[in-house]
């Protein structure tokens, strides 16, 4: 099983690299497609069948087709010519690596002194913690009996109802912005 995970993760990572590094946009799009399918398999393995189905339908089926349309309608030669090789890319990469290692080192060796819990606890009342844990356990128990879409629905329209509604404004803004910027007349 672990081998399977590693292979799958490697495949997804390679596809992601392929998207960025491929010379022709079509190859990029195909790598992206394989990557999407890989992620869907990952979801399946995590027993999130509904999310896997949505992943295939929306990403592999919908968004990728849009990408392909976009590629068809743009000038491929122009895209190929603008491919850039930056001389400064390697030094920057080394710099980033050094910074990353430095930060990582700092993280491992910093001196954490846990502060007094009760001065920090947001719920000063211990019974509230208990109530929270009880509720979570209850929900977990209920979730075991629900089907996959039901569980997704419960999270989406229960816990995340507000961000879900706010996301509708987000999508509205995205559509409006695209239309506004593409319009001819101000």
């Amino acid at each position, binding site marked *: 099983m672990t081998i399977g995970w590693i292979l799958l993760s490697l495949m997804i990572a390679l596809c992601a690299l392929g998207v960025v590094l491929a010379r022709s946009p079509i190859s990029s799009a195909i790598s992206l497609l394989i990557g999407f399918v890989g992620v869907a398999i990952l979801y399946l393995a995590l027993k999130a069948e509904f999310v896997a189905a949505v992943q295939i339908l929306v990403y592999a089926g919908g968004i990728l087709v849009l990408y392909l349309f976009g590629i068809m309608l743009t000038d491929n030669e122009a895209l190929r010519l603008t491919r850039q090789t930056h001389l400064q890319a390697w030094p920057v990469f080394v710099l980033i690596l050094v910074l990353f290692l430095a930060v990582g080192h700092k993280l491992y060796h*910093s001196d954490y002194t846990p502060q007094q819990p009760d001065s920090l606890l947001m719920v000063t009342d211990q019974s509230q913690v208990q109530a929270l844990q009880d509720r979570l356990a209850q929900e977990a128990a209920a979730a075991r009996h629900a089907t996959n879409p039901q569980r997704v629905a419960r999270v989406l329209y229960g816990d995340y109802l507000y961000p879900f509604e706010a996301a509708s404004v987000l999508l509205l803004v995205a559509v409006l912005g695209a239309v506004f910027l593409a319009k001819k007349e*101000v």
Partner: protein
Amino acid sequence: MPVLHPEFWRLLSPEWVLVCFGTLFLLLSALPATRGAKRAIGVMALFGFAVVLVLCAQTLAALSPGMHVAALTGLDGQIGLTVDGFSQVFKFIFVLGALLTVLMSFKYLDVEKAWTGEYFTFLTFAVFGMMVMASGVDLLTLWVGLETMALSVYVLAAYMRRQEPSVEGATKYFLLGAFSSGLYLYGTSLIYGATGTVQLGAIRLALMDRLAHGGPAAVGFPLAAGLVILSVSLLFKAALVPFHWWTPDAYEGAATPITAFMSVAPKAAAFAMLLRIFVVGFLPLAPMWTGLLSLVAVLTMAWGNIAAMLQNNVKRMLAYSSIAHAGYALVGLVAAGRSQSNQGIAAVAFYLLVYAFMNLGAFGLVLYLQREGSAGDQMDDFDGLIQRSPLMAVLMIFFLLSLGGIPPMAGFLGKLMIFYSALDARLYLLVVVLAVTSVISLYYYFRVVYHMFLKEGAPNLPAPSAGRPLGWSLALCGVAVLAIGLYGQPFLHWASQAVLLGR
């Protein structure tokens, strides 16, 4: 269901009223209309933001002394957001910034003949996104707010899409912004993987649990890396060094009122989110992130001020100065992480309020100098302003003194509060850097004064005209800068209401 509770609608009235107004502007802008009718949308936007401003103040006043209402705590993840003193104080700042921006937009849109209803629609939805950023208590809700704001602001930055600098700046902003949003989600997924939750309260409990049982080593690399990646994306949004490269181009290219807006409201929103995430969710890791953020604060104050000295374009100069000011505010955030008191958060809230007035005022002067065929943003445009329009020159001096942190202006009091909170938290290095860089900043602020007073303006240049809305907004900013500076007590009290739920 907490959603159907009447209290819910009352407490979230700023949000839903704002969305209603935004939708209304959207529908109205779809109607074929003359310029006069488009102007009417601007007047309605003014009215809308004024209403929401009142609602923000009202909801803040209605909060119980515990500063939150049980129906909405969201601490145990009921709906992912909360209404506390902190969120309402910040919402007030956003709406205030938007209100002044609308007032300032009238002249710009007249001169450029660029009236549309969409302008106000995007402004409204951007403020809605900011409100979600101030209220959200889980990483996903915060992200939705962040993206709503960011997408609206990208479009606004590209608003003058016939002008190349506007498109160039907006494109840079969009590409880097999209990348930083991706980073945010990546950091969130690492944190979720490590703690099993995206709710800030639960993250904090998980962290405390780990530190108590396994010590520092138990924090683990994924969690720490997730926090660093998350903070990178937020530092980008707040335009802090070294994540500030998009700022000068985006600010210079965008329409001047939008630049003014971008330098005030989205920055305040990014700070609201930084404060909420770091001071509520990641407080147990404060020794780690205060170190990182101190470094960022030093770099930001130093580089923002040094680079500002080299600019000849006033908009660009103000862009770098806004970077420096974000650095000052970051000192308050670090202080909030280091000490137990609420002083740091109150200092940041107060500073952002003051900064909104003085920075919008300074950009307002650029708008005042704008005329057909010139944006009025070159240093030379300020030449001899004292002879052409003495009142405006004096107002500009108010704003510049305030930005430089000279007493009796409001900016001085703001810096003093940051100063005190940093001293309280024993951040001596940051205090020294703050003081030294403030002195450096006087150089470029006084350059403008020099141009206004000692340089001869071009002969026969007509006195610029303000138009009534711009004049009002400038007067309001000027009075506020002076009044807060001379009598800051009520405003300080107001800012001290910014109590984070769960801190």
